[in-house]
């Protein structure tokens, strides 16, 4: 980093969730990311058992994916989800829902489905999650286009430190259908979740130190297939961090962030 870095932000990871093509959960993904052997395979997003039946019927793919990785991370951290503040981050939201709305609005009758409209809010995953967990804890939903994962990680760490409480970060993206897919091609769905805490606990598996600095090239994945995922799916921009987490955990990672502003993460074991 060439210029002065911001003060660093120190948090700990208590729980991890991951779901992507060929990465069915964090337990199975970690050795593939650490030692190699990953291969693309279609992603199955489990039905969110946690949701009441009415909400489960209405939930779109990005909601299901977000809840799946959030559940993994909470189970891994051994924490009660109702007590967690949450930060949800997504570049694209529910693309299928967006397409359906735009299609009907371009038609003659313009008869919008009330459920489609309700689901069109960017904070739909957060809304469904807090309904499912009966949680009145603070929650936010962010977007920073290709920098959405880094923006979410930064905000989740900021909240954990300044509020002094555990924060659940969930980043998830799903592909658009055509014609939006051609305008914004995301080749696969990808979701990741982290439970961040301000003080180390018995569950903590890594110490993270985040700092902002001047522009720096983001780290890439050595595996060509994983690198395609990383470079094409905003939530998969997390992969270099997840690889460092699976190796040790140790290392310094520059995550893709914004022009002129890099996010550097240092990982250390406890």
């Amino acid at each position, binding site marked *: 980093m060439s*210029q002065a870095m*911001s003060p660093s932000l120190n948090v700990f990871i208590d729980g991890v969730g991951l779901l992507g093509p060929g990465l069915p959960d964090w337990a199975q993904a970690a050795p593939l990311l650490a030692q190699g052997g990953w291969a693309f395979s279609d992603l199955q997003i489990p039905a969110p058992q946690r949701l009441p039946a009415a*909400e489960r019927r*209405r939930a779109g793919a990005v909601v299901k994916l977000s809840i799946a990785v959030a559940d993994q991370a909470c189970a891994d951290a051994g924490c009660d989800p109702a007590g967690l503040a949450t930060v949800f981050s997504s*570049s*694209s*939201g529910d693309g299928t829902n*967006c397409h359906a*709305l*735009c299609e009907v*609005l*371009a038609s003659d009758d313009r*008869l*919008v*489905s*009330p459920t*489609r*409209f*309700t689901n*069109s*809010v*960017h*904070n*739909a995953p*957060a*809304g*469904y999650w*807090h*309904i499912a967990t009966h*949680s*009145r*804890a*603070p*929650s*936010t*939903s*962010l*977007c*920073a*286009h290709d*920098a*959405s994962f880094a*923006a979410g990680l930064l*905000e989740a760490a*900021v*909240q954990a*430190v*300044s509020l002094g409480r555990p924060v659940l970060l969930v980043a998830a993206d799903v592909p658009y259908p*055509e*014609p*939006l897919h051609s*305008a*914004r091609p995301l080749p696969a769905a990808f979701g990741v979740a982290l439970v961040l805490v301000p003080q180390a606990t018995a569950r903590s598996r890594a110490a993270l130190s985040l700092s*902002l600095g*001047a522009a720096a090239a983001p780290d890439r994945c050595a595996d060509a297939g994983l690198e395609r995922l990383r470079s094409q799916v905003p939530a998969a921009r997390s992969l270099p961090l997840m690889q460092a987490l699976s190796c040790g955990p140790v290392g310094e990672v520059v995550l893709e*962030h*914004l*022009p*002129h*502003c890099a996010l550097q993460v240092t990982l250390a074991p406890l």
Partner: protein
Amino acid sequence: MTPMQPVPITAYTLATALGVGRGMHAQALREGRSGLAAKPFETVTLPTWIGEVPGVDAQAMPAGMDDFDCRNNRLALLALQADGFEQQVLAARERWGAQRVGVFLGTSTSGILQTELAYRRRDDANGALPADFHYAQTHNTYSVAAFVRQHLGLQGPAFVVSTACSSSAKVFGNAARMIALGLIDAAVVGGVDSLCLTTLYGFHSLELLSPDICRPWDAERHGLSLGEAGAYALLERDSASPQAWLLGCGESSDGHHMSSPHPEGLGAAQAMQDAVAQAGLTAQDIDYVNLHGTATPNNDQAEDMAVSRVFGAVPCSSTKGATGHTLGAAGAVEAALSMLSMAQQWLPGGLNVRTIDPALQANYQCEGRAAALRHVASNSFGFGGSNACLVLRGAV
């Protein structure tokens, strides 16, 4: 709840159906004027009233930024240029350095109108969107923050908060926390949301769009009137002459339903209590509450229970009868109107009430009047059960 270090607000501005800039808004609040009108938008002829910002269609993009051209970014730029706000941001950039100034904006629908229009121009043969459709610059939820950050030459952290109608209240909290932790020294916060077909037909489908002008707190209220707006505030680490102070930003979830508030406003009340506690105040210190007050039957009822429980008989009103519901911009618009009310020592009346709903308990003010306003609370609640409350203090 730990008290928040008060954050100086060194500049703010807004553009709504009432006009562009603080002067027009101060005058409109004193006159009790509404910017809403029963008229069509684009090709939409639903029976409703809308709050359209004058001059959006004529706003040109800055040189070299044509790919960002869409109604939402035109409105973003129009508001940025009001009250010399842009120049004050550039002065803050000089003072702190471009890397030390963040951009945190709220929007619910971003530039979706551009996509809606592009869907009418799909290729007959293969269904493709037209080549002049620019996804990242207009459709993506982040596009308005990308536009503002690039236009102002800022290099600090940036994102869009999109939690429906609480979005641009919550960004004040994002900025305050990052300033407190030393990650940045200043931030442009605000909200921009523009009229589009998705929200007009969407709220219509939920039967929440009023055929009449919206009448918050009225016994016969029939839903909301949609407006559009851009509003900004500049937060800095310190200032010799702040316009106002951010004292608290309470945030909570309902965890109840995607499109209906908790019937007793439990989540909303928690956000208000947290905001007051962060401010190091008690509810009795609040001189006026700017309500979310959308004029949907359920919202006003739930908010009334929450406000009455937390603030008792503190005077309150909704300014949405004047601006319409500006959705993702509402939090920043109403923060700006709250700061303006304190600067003018003028308590804004809630417009369009014929008969106050006798079932509502809060001390609702239908008429504007001079009042000593030192501390104001501003409520913003959104779909998905997202609640935020700001507590602000005037400069004097």
